[in-house]
């Protein structure tokens, strides 16, 4: 083997090792984060956490019951807002390709890249400013707008995956366009679309920034759409920024809960996709 060849092989090996190192480097923070979240948070996740309200400033104890419910309400509003808009938009993009659809697709991609805090400003201007009041609705709208691009893209892609024969078959039987889409094509793509919605929900459930000046936060129990509402993320943020150790502990607990929620949602989505693929293959 010539010296040149030996050198080239050495270089090759070095770079291969470096790439492996890159994987390790990325996995270290992941491991650390999961470790700390579990270590600091899991222990504090007791019944009180789920059922009690936050205690006044400085007092130990209490829980995040209102924040948990608040998050659920917020993602509920977001879904109510984003699912119809996103799905119908996705249906249009899949059924009617053309210049308009390309423009819309482009807009959805742009929307996907807009920082969540900017969306928060928009929701502020749209929902908070006119009534001069922070509200759960404003927070839900902000989260909904974050969800829309994901739902649009998933819906469109999955509808396009439905075999053309199905579509033609329905139309040939005399079904109207809307009938064929809603009764034949969408059901065929439904599992995938639901998965996409789950994924989008997982993403917005962890959002904090856009809520800071739309839904704000609420120390009390509230389920009203027109009042500020507590949320897991903002509560964790507030507690983390405080000087109280007990609140820090609760912040970790909240973080643990968030991570569990999101993990569950994304594992569920992944399993659904796998089952979907298996179904389609058979």
């Amino acid at each position, binding site marked *: 083997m010539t010296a040149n060849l030996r050198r*080239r092989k050495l*270089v090759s090996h070095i*770079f*291969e090792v470096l*790439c*492996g190192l*890159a*994987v390790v480097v*990325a996995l270290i*923070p*992941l491991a*650390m*984060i999961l470790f*700390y*979240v579990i270590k600091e948070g899991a222990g504090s996740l007791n019944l009180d956490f789920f059922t009690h309200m936050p205690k006044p400033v400085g007092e130990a104890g209490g829980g995040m019951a209102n924040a948990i419910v608040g998050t659920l309400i917020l993602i509920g509003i977001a879904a109510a807002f984003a699912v119809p808009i*996103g799905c*119908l938009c996705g*249906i*249009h*993009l899949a059924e*009617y390709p053309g210049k*308009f*659809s390309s423009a*819309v697709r482009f*807009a*959805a991609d*742009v929307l*996907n*890249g*807009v*920082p*969540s*805090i900017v969306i928060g*400003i*928009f929701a*502020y*201007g749209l929902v908070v400013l006119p009534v001069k009041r922070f509200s759960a609705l404003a927070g839900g709208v902000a989260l909904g707008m974050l969800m829309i691009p994901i739902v649009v*893209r*998933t819906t469109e892609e999955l509808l396009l995956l439905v075999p053309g024969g199905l579509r033609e078959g329905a139309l040939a039987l005399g079904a*109207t*366009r*809307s009938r064929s889409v809603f009764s034949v094509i969408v059901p065929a793509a439904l599992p995938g679309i639901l*998965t996409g919605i789950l994924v989008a929900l*997982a*993403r917005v459930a*962890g*959002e*904090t*920034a856009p809520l*800071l000046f739309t839904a704000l936060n609420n120390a009390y129990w509230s389920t009203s759409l027109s009042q500020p509402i507590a949320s897991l*993320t903002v509560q*964790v*943020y507030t507690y*983390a*920024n405080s000087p109280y150790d007990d609140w820090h502990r609760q912040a970790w607990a909240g973080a643990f809960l*968030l991570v569990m929620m*999101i993990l569950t949602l*994304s594992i569920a*989505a*992944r399993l659904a996709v796998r089952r979907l693929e298996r179904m389609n293959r058979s």
Partner: protein
Amino acid sequence: MKRSSDDRRFRLGTGAFAALVLLIVVGIAIELTRQSTLSIAKFGLKFWTTSTWDPVSGMFGALPFIWGTLYSSVLALLVAAPVALGIAIFISELSPRLLKQPLAYLTELLAAIPSIVYGLWGMFVLVPLVRKFEIAMGAKPALGVGMLAGALILAVMVIPFTSSVAREILKNVPSTQREAAYALGATRWEAIKVAIGFGKSGIIGAVMLGFGRALGETIAVTMVIGNAPQVTASLFKPQYTMAAVIANEFSEAADELYLHALIEIGLLLFIITIVVNILSRLLIWSMKRRVAAPAVTQLLAEEVPV
């Protein structure tokens, strides 16, 4: 005919919702501009070049925030891009078949962790570590919070996403390219370089997409960067980003000018991230054209960890 009118209604109906999505994007641009007129009128272009940010006296200059955002994002990408590329190469070219899926899934897991959790970890774990480092380097005062912590946490957050896009790009490089290199007597790394060369524009696009993400990241950054508006190249000094200042001061903004100044910053953030995103998608699209790969929409399905 009844049928065609139904079809027309269907088309218009769904089209309306599609138009709504378009309107949202346009609406953001309009609303942001509308809500920053006071600040634009008062400060004009000096807004972007002055450093005073004094809500009390009503003087607003956004330079420190622009600096903080760009500096932190560039530093983050300097760390994240090679690591993300290394991961992408490892998973797609080097790893044994059994490891591929689990590794891919683990990197996606990193992407799914919410910003606030990163922030919490950053605040309570990373910052103390950085502080120890700063003390060892002789920095005074050693705060821990600062540009270094901010850039590091951004890097970690951006790596998984950049790496998945890069991996998709590499997957789309035809295997015949690598085969041609091997047949000419290339080593493994040389063949990988050929693949990277083929996917060059796509990979740059992936890095740019990561950059766009870093620009807009808010919560994790504000929890570790120190939130002090100053223009300095020092890694140890606390600094401030555009997204962070909006997050922290928006609900406190007492008067309209203050609010408008913050929204103007939001407008700039909006414009910058759109431009970066468009450029990166163009790059990825131009690479896809060379390959004519079918399911390239997957390339752009950034958010979907499935």
